[in-house]
């Protein structure tokens, strides 16, 4: 465990090698294998660290590598505090879980990428793996960082890598635009995060998570009765940060656009790891948030609204990756819903299962896109089951998992969230409203996921023809020099990660079986017990809130949600497999809502009209002011100066210059007498020096 600092460093080294040397010199395979090897090594170290953590009583281990910022006196609320930051890393259950997710899924995605990226030019491959490794470096720093500032380094770093990777095909304008969008939107969130960090230091005088939690646990809980206090402010700011990184309302708009990046990137960054950083951060500060119930309520509302809105948009999207993107937003909403109702364990659990099945789905979609020669539109697919059986099967597993059908992983985590929401008593919102919205979202989820599966893998093939005389679909522009021979299964490099992830998506849920199943499965709620120490302050005794309900009621809820999900699946099956034309009729009959959904509620347009136009408009206004008023003033000043200077000039020329010239003339006349001493012969000057020495030595001789 002492060497956990090595875990982020290894991909960092890989990135450095690939970036500094690889882009010029490495072959494609070498770059990929090097990056994957570094990730594999990091995975191995993570597993070792995890094993050691299991054997550790404290479930907490902190390693300080070096001092970063030496103590600086800074103002805090308690007078002058000492601001010092170390490069220190924490291993506790939460970070250990994240560690395994990041290294494990990261490793699989690296391997997958070797196959996915092989048609890129040589330097591009090394650049890609450099970025990917760099991302893992920062993500691991974020996860392991034991104080806000180290986390912030990782936080910004993953933002940077996300930008770089979204814009990986930077020649494509849409890709570079999407990268910039992601970067700028994230900056808004970071603004909140940074303010939160400032406030944390100002309040607690430290940035260490554990110390902050410890200090916060001694402060009163800021319920509605107590009022909106400093902890609530901190939490709100931090949550703004989280909305940016985790794509929640109102800052979710960047994530769908981020699908311009290569698919492994979408899987790793925009589904499995980076976007969950916000959730992770909220969980990490669970103690703070539990002391601010009003903010918790806000989190829950934002979460559930995001989940619902994204799910509805996802219903009508036709781009396979965009469906998944909105699905990701929606699932992240679920996670925030969970944190909002205080179920941090459930949030983390859903984070983990989501990482599995969403990475799986993305990689599967990548495989489909790869096999369809960069085709992303689902309307051009269909019936691909027979061409790419492995992809179809694994993606179907992923879809079942996300829909929440037992015993696949999604069922356990999502059900846990819904169950906890059901039990939650809100501050502003009436009880069960959040739950109701969550259930609706669950149904929508099941529907759009199976819509995706059905449109892609079932039904008739609707894509372009291939072979001799095939219609050229403009796909030759993408620079892949190879001819397309129809949809095909992807290479081994890509399918093996799919299979591994599918197994994970199937089985990951069993670490968090609900207590209701105690009778048939003795190891219930393992993960929540495991994670619990991370969510309470050190001193606080581990009093788990008892969420009790009758066994029957709990099972009923589960059955209800499963039924809902099955309903969604059935609806999708009816509309897209049995009677494909039904979907179009439905769309026509609901033309208005359909158009709204297709245009994503016009949010982008809204932002464009308000924020972007507003900024541009005000900039134009300011420019006008600048030109008319400021420049006018400057020009006026200039004219005045010219006029004044003319007066001054006259004075200068005759009076001042006259004096100066007179002086110079006098000097010049006088210097004729003296200038003979300046012979220009250096040796004469040296002679004078020697004369001085002579005088001095003579004085010395005589005076002694």
């Amino acid at each position: 465990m002492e060497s956990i600092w090595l875990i982020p460093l290894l991909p960092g080294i890989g990135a450095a090698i690939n970036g500094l040397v690889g882009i010029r010199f490495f072959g494609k395979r070498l770059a990929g294998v090097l990056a994957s090897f570094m990730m594999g090594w990091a995975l191995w170290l993570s597993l070792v660290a995890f094993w050691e953590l299991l054997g550790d009583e404290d479930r907490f281990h902190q390693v300080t590598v070096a001092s970063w910022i030496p103590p600086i006196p800074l103002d805090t609320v308690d007078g002058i505090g000492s601001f010092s930051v170390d490069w220190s890393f924490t291993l506790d259950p939460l970070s250990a879980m994240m560690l395994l997710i990041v290294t494990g899924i990261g490793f699989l995605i690296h391997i997958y990428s070797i196959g996915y990226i092989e048609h890129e030019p040589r330097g591009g491959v090394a650049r890609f793996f450099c970025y990917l490794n760099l991302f893992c470096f920062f993500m691991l720093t974020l996860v392991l960082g034991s104080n806000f500032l180290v986390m912030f380094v990782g936080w910004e770093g993953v933002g940077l890598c996300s930008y770089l990777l979204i814009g990986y095909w930077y020649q494509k304008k849409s890709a570079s635009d999407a990268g910039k969008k992601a970067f700028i939107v994230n900056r808004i969130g970071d603004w909140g995060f940074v303010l939160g960090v400032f406030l944390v230091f100002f309040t607690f005088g430290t940035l260490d998570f554990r110390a902050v939690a410890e200090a916060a646990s001694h402060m009163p809980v800021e319920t509605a009765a107590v009022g909106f206090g400093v902890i609530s402010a901190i939490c709100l700011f931090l949550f703004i940060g989280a909305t940016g990184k985790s794509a929640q309302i109102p800052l979710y708009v960047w994530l769908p656009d981020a699908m311009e990046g290569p698919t492994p990137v979408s899987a790793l960054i925009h589904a499995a790891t980076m976007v969950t950083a916000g959730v992770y951060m909220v969980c990490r500060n669970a103690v703070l948030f539990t002391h601010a119930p009003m903010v918790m309520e806000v989190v829950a509302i934002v979460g559930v609204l995001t989940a619902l809105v994204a799910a509805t948009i996802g219903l009508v999207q036709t781009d396979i990756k965009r469906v998944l993107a909105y699905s990701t937003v929606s699932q992240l909403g679920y996670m925030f819903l969970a944190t909002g109702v205080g179920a941090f364990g459930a949030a983390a659990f859903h984070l983990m299962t989501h990482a599995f099945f969403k990475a799986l789905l993305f990689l599967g979609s990548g495989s489909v896109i790869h096999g369809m020669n960069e085709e992303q539109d689902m309307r051009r697919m269909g019936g691909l089951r027979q061409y790419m059986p492995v992809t179809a099967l694994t993606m179907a597993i992923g879809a079942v998992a996300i829909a929440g059908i037992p015993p696949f992983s999604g069922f356990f985590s999502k059900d846990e969230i819904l169950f906890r929401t059901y039990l939650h008593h809100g501050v502003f919102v009436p009880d069960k409203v959040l739950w109701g919205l969550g259930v609706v979202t669950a149904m929508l989820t099941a529907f759009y996921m199976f819509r995706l599966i059905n449109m892609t893998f079932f039904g008739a093939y609707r894509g372009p023809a291939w072979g001799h005389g095939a219609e050229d679909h403009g796909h030759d522009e993408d620079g892949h020099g190879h001819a397309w021979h129809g949809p095909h299964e992807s290479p081994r490099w890509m399918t093996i990660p799919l299979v591994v992830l599918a197994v994970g998506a199937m089985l990951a849920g069993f670490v968090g079986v609900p207590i209701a199943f105690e009778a048939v499965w003795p190891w219930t709620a393992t993960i929540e017990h495991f994670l619990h120490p991370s969510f309470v302050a050190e001193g606080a005794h581990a009093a788990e809130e008892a969420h009790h309900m009758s066994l029957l009621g709990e099972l009923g809820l589960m059955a209800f949600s499963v039924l809902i999900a099955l309903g969604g699946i059935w609806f999708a099956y009816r509309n897209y497999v049995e009677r494909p034309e039904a979907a179009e009729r439905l769309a026509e009959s609901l033309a208005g809502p359909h158009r709204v959904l297709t245009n994503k509620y016009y949010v982008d347009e809204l932002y464009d009209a308000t924020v972007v136009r507003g900024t541009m408009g005000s900039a134009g206004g300011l420019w006008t002011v600048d030109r008319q008023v400021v420049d006018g003033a400057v020009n006026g000043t200039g004219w005045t100066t010219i006029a004044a200077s003319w007066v001054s000039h006259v004075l200068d020329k005759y009076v001042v210059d006259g004096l100066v010239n007179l002086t110079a003339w006098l000097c010049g006349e006088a210097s004729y007498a003296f200038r003979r001493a300046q012979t220009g012969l250096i040796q004469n000057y040296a002679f004078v020096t020697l004369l001085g020495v002579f005088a001095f030595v003579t004085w010395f001789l005589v005076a002694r």
Partner: protein
Amino acid sequence: MLEITPLHYSLLSAALFMIGVIGVLVRRNVIIIFMSIELILNAVNINLIALSDQLQDLAGQVFVVFVIAVAAAEAAVGLGIIIAFYRNKETVNIDEIQIMRW
């Protein structure tokens, strides 16, 4: 005469120093003037080394090392100037290098 004291070294140093000074004053070839300066520096070094040995203090030797470094720098830059000058004027006679007076 037979017992060599630091005074002997100092006087040797003084004599060599003055030889250097005379060289600087008498010769007109800039390069030889530079060499005379090197002689002066060496005279100083002899003094430093002798007194370092006498006073059992390494500072003298350290200073000699620095003097040698300075001499190297001086030679490099000085000779660079001579070369540059020679390229333009085709002379190294110091009496012809005097147009910057007045």
